[in-house]
């Protein structure tokens, strides 16, 4: 096994089995907000127990280890073909070890090769930068929450949403209402205003790479991010849709330019098991630092 493969394998293992500290902290706050003895409090307690068990056992937090999404930032000249080969090898091995479920299905035949490798799997985004270091982030995004993502085209008559932040707000709240408990809340939303149908969704998922406690540098968006969490929580959907105080843990909003004719609001719903981790790799592809 090459050093790169080893590092990527460890990245996969940790992402699957251990929740990053900022997500755990947000879940702890959510648990404290639920009424004692309520079904919501019960669900949050089971979640807490599950997090501890997964870490100790080095086993998947959730059996749906989801889509395997790599985000790489590297200097110009990274051999991206070699990177994909190493990533695919790491994914196959992680699947054999049970850190990933056999999650890749042929859409025409229903066949599951059991390797997690196939057309579109794993996804690897590579962005060159002028930095010297290589950063590899990994997100495992489950199917349940993926299914309750939504993309809106504004203006939307049914929602009474126009092409402004007031309209964006209505879209996001609509997505939360529609999702109810099906995304395994309390969830985290990644939102993109703008882009086309493809880039809008992709950028909305990238918002989920942000730290839970970061602030949006745009003051209006920062206000909207926090306001939406508060408002979503007043809907009382609660953990698992059992009813309760904590429906969302966070909202992260990004923006892309758009065509004059299009105004998309893309919402990616991430479940409580927000599995995203990252590493800095040195010249020998060894891990020097964890990013979350």
């Amino acid at each position, binding site marked *: 096994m090459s050093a790169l493969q080893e590092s990527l394998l460890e990245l996969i293992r940790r992402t699957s089995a251990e929740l990053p500290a900022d997500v755990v902290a947000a879940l702890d706050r959510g648990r404290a907000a639920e009424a004692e003895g309520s079904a919501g409090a019960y669900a949050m307690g089971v979640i807490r127990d599950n997090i501890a068990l997964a870490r100790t056992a080095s086993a998947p937090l959730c*059996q749906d280890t989801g889509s395997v999404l790599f985000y790489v930032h590297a200097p110009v000249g990274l051999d991206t073909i070699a990177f994909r080969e190493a990533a695919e090898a790491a994914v196959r091995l992680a699947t054999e070890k049970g850190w990933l479920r056999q999650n890749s299905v042929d859409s025409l035949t229903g066949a599951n090769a059991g390797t997690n490798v196939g057309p579109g799997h794993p996804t690897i985004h590579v962005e060159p930068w002028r930095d010297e270091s290589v950063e590899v982030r990994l997100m495992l995004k489950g199917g349940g929450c993926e299914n309750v993502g939504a993309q809106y085209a504004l203006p939307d008559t049914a929602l009474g949403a126009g092409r402004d932040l007031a309209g964006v707000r209505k879209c996001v709240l609509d997505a939360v209402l529609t999702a109810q408990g099906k995304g395994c809340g309390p969830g985290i939303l990644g939102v993109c205003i703008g882009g086309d149908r493809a880039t809008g969704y992709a950028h909305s998922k990238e918002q989920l790479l942000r730290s839970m406690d970061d602030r949006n540098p745009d003051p209006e968006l920062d206000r909207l991010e926090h306001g939406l969490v508060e408002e979503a929580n007043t809907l009382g959907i609660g953990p698992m849709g059992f009813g309760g105080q904590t429906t969302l843990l966070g909202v992260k909003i990004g923006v892309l330019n758009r065509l004059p004719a299009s105004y998309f609001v893309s919402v990616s719903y991430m479940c409580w098991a927000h599995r995203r981790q990252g590493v800095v790799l040195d010249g020998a592809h060894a891990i020097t630092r964890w990013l979350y």
Partner: protein
Amino acid sequence: MITLEAPYTEDKIRALKVGDMVAISGTLYTGRDAFHKYLHDGGKPPVDLTDQILYHCGPVVVPEGDGWRVKAAGPTTSIREEPYQGDILRRFAVRGVIGKGGMGEKTLKALQEVGAVYMHAVGGAAQVLARCVTRVKNVYMLEELGSPEAVWELEVAEFPVVITMDSHGGSLHREVLSRSRQALDAIL
């Protein structure tokens, strides 16, 4: 915590109501998208499902010795089976469905008719629930359906669920949807 042990009789099941916290000890059969469609399309179940509990779950299972070990076993989203569930409950006299996120009116009606309940396991609690699996007794249709979609016969002890849809027309999901819709209308 109410204890529910096999055999899952109609009396035991009809005694349960929305909000009850239940610990199940006995056999569960996993079955999700592909299995439900297979049954709906006229397929014969590989086991007798009478008075059994179906678990909407695609576990992570690895070979161990002569058998299998469950590494992760949380529920999948049940609403995808809504087109099929009611019919399956009626045809095969299934007593319970475990999943997450709830199901719809068709299933609710069938639960009433048949005497069955929908039981909500905590989504993503894959390790907590894997620990409740004492044994993998068997697996069916593994070749045809692949590991996540196969019918895994699991022996469980004190498997914790919350009843969110009962055999008397009660549904927590309907209540929460209605309340949350009202709450949203109030702030828009």
